[in-house]
C-alpha cells in the first residue's frame, strides 16, 4: 500500500518533468558550467583566475557599477518614498489613481528608447539643455548625459516609479492613530518620523533598496545606448567579451559573470527574505 502511494507520488512529479528539463537545460546547467573555468586552472582548484581577472581596469568597472547602483538605489528610495508619501496623503483620489497608473507604466520603460529620450531631453543640444541655456544656466560641459551621471539620471526614470509601487503598501500600513498617539504624547513631527514612522518602514525601505540596487547593477541596454563603451561598467565589459570585441578570454568573462551573479544573488535573496517577513507581519 505504502509503496503504491510512493510510486504514485513519482508519477505525479513526472507531470512537472517538461518544465524541470527546460529549466535545467536553459537556466541551471549553463550557469553551472561557468563555475569550472572560474575555479579550475591547469587542472587544479585555484583562485588564480580571480587574481588574473581583477586588473585595475576590471576593478574600476566593478567600482563604477556598484557606485552607480548604490547612488541610484539610494536616491530612488529617498525620492520615491517622499513622492509616494505625497501620493497616499493627497485628498484628490483621481490624482492618486492617475499617478499610480503612471508609475505602473513608466517603471516598465527602459533600454534603448529611454536612453534616446534622455539624449533628446538632456543631450548637448537637448530640449531642456536649450531651455536652461536661454535662462542662463549652462549644463554643458559640467554635466554630460553621456556619462555615468547621465546614466544615473536615466536609471532613476525607471527606479523611481518602481520604488513608489513597492513602498505604497507599507505607507498605507502606517496607521493614523499611531501618529495621533505620538503627537498627543508630545512628539514633534521629526520625532514621530525618527522614533515611530521610519523604524516601522525600515524593512520595506531596505528591501526596496536591494530591489533597486539589483535592477541597476544588472542593467545593460540603457547604458549601452546612452554611453556605448565610454562608461566602464561590469555588464558592458561582459557584453564586450561575449561579442568578442576584446580578445576572447573565456575564464575572464566567466569570472566577471560569477561575481556579478553573486552580487545579484545577495540582493535578490535579501529582498525576498525581507518581503516574506513583512508580508507575514502584515497578515
Amino acid at each position, binding site marked *: 500500500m505504502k509503496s503504491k502511494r510512493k510510486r504514485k507520488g513519482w508519477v505525479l512529479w513526472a*507531470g512537472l518533468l517538461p518544465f524541470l528539463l527546460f529549466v535545467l537545460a536553459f537556466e541551471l546547467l549553463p550557469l553551472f558550467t561557468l563555475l569550472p573555468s572560474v575555479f579550475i586552472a591547469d587542472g587544479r582548484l585555484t583562485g588564480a583566475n580571480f587574481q588574473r581577472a581583477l586588473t585595475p581596469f576590471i576593478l574600476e568597472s566593478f567600482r563604477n557599477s556598484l557606485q552607480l547602483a548604490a547612488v541610484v538605489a539610494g536616491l530612488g528610495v529617498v525620492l520615491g518614498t517622499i513622492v509616494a508619501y*505625497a501620493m497616499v496623503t493627497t485628498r484628490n483620489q483621481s490624482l492618486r489613481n492617475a499617478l499610480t497608473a503612471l508609475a505602473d*507604466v513608466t517603471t516598465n520603460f527602459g*533600454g534603448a528608447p529611454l536612453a*534616446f529620450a534622455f539624449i533628446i531631453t538632456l543631450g548637448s543640444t537637448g530640449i531642456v539643455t536649450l531651455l536652461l541655456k536661454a535662462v542662463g544656466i549652462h549644463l554643458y560641459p559640467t554635466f554630460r548625459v553621456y556619462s555615468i551621471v547621465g546614466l544615473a539620471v536615466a536609471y532613476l526614470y525607471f527606479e*523611481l516609479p518602481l520604488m513608489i509601487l513597492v513602498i505604497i503598501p507599507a505607507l498605507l500600513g502606517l496607521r493614523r492613530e499611531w501618529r495621533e498617539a505620538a503627537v498627543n504624547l508630545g512628539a514633534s513631527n521629526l520625532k514621530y518620523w525618527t522614533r515611530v514612522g521610519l523604524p516601522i518602514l525600515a524593512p520595506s525601505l531596505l528591501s526596496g533598496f536591494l530591489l533597486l540596487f539589483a535592477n541597476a547593477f544588472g542593467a*545593460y541596454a540603457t547604458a549601452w545606448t546612452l554611453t556605448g563603451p565610454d562608461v566602464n561598467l561590469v555588464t558592458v565589459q561582459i557584453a564586450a567579451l561575449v561579442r568578442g570585441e576584446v580578445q576572447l578570454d573565456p575564464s575572464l568573462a566567466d569570472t566577471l559573470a560569477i561575481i556579478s551573479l553573486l552580487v545579484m544573488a545577495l540582493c535578490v535573496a535579501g529582498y525576498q527574505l525581507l518581503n516574506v517577513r513583512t508580508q507575514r507581519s502584515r497578515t
Partner: protein
Amino acid sequence: MIRRDGWRPAVLGLFLMFMLVPLAATVLFSISTRWDRTIFPEGLTLQWWFKVTERSAFVDTLTNSLILSFVTVLLALLLVAPTAYWSYLRVPRSRPLMDILTFIPFGIPGVVLALALIRFYSNVPLPLINTPALLVAACMVISMPFMYRPVANALEAVDIRLLTEAAQSLGAGWSKTFVRVVLPNILPGILSGCLLVFSAVFAEFTLVNLLVGTRFKTFPIYLVEFTRFDGRQASALAVISFAVAWLISLLIIWVVGRGSRPTEALGAR
C-alpha cells in the same frame, strides 16, 4: 511663509515633470523639422515618420519582434501554466521548488545569461548556437517570473482544488475540467502573464544583440542602429516603442486591475 501643505503639490509636480518631459520631448522631436538651435521647434513635419516607416527594414524588424514575442508568449504559456496548475493541484510539495526556480531568472542579468548559454551550447552537440531557437529559450527564461507569478496568484485566489473536485464529482473529465472550469477562472492571471511576457520580449535588446547579433534583427536593435545614424527617425521609433509598452500596461490594468504587476516583472533594462 510657505503654507504647511505646500510641499505636496511641489513634490508631485516635480515628479510629473521628470516622468513626462522626456516622453513629451521625444514625441515633439519626432515631428519637428529642426530643434537643436532654438528653444522651440523651427517647424512641424511628419516626414521623419514617413521616411522611417517606408524602409523595408522597418517592417522586417517589426515583424521579427512580433514573431519573437508571440512565439515566446505561446511557448511560455504552454510550459508554465499547465505546470503551475499541476503543481498546485497534485504536487503541493513542489511549490517551494517551483517558486524558487521561477524566481531565479529575476536575479540573472541578461548579459550573464547570454554568456552562459553561448559557453554551454558551443560545447554541446546541439545545433542551437546563433539560432533564433536559442533566443526564444533565453527569452522564456528571463520572462519566467512574469508568466508564473500572475498564474500562481490566480490559482491561489480561486481555490483551484475545490473547483476541480466539484467539476469531477459532477462527471467532468480532466480535459473538460481544465478547459471549462479551471481556465475561465484563472484567465485574468493568464492574460496578464501573457501581456507581461509580450511587453518584455518586444523590448528585449541585450539577449537579441548577444545571442543572434545581426542574423535576426528586431525592433530595438533597429532603433539602436538609428540612434547613431539619424536621431529624428530614431525618435519616431522610440515613440512607437513607448506606445507599445504604454498600450500593454493599460491593457494589463484593464484586464486585472491596478497593482497586480509582480515586482519581479520588470521590463528590459
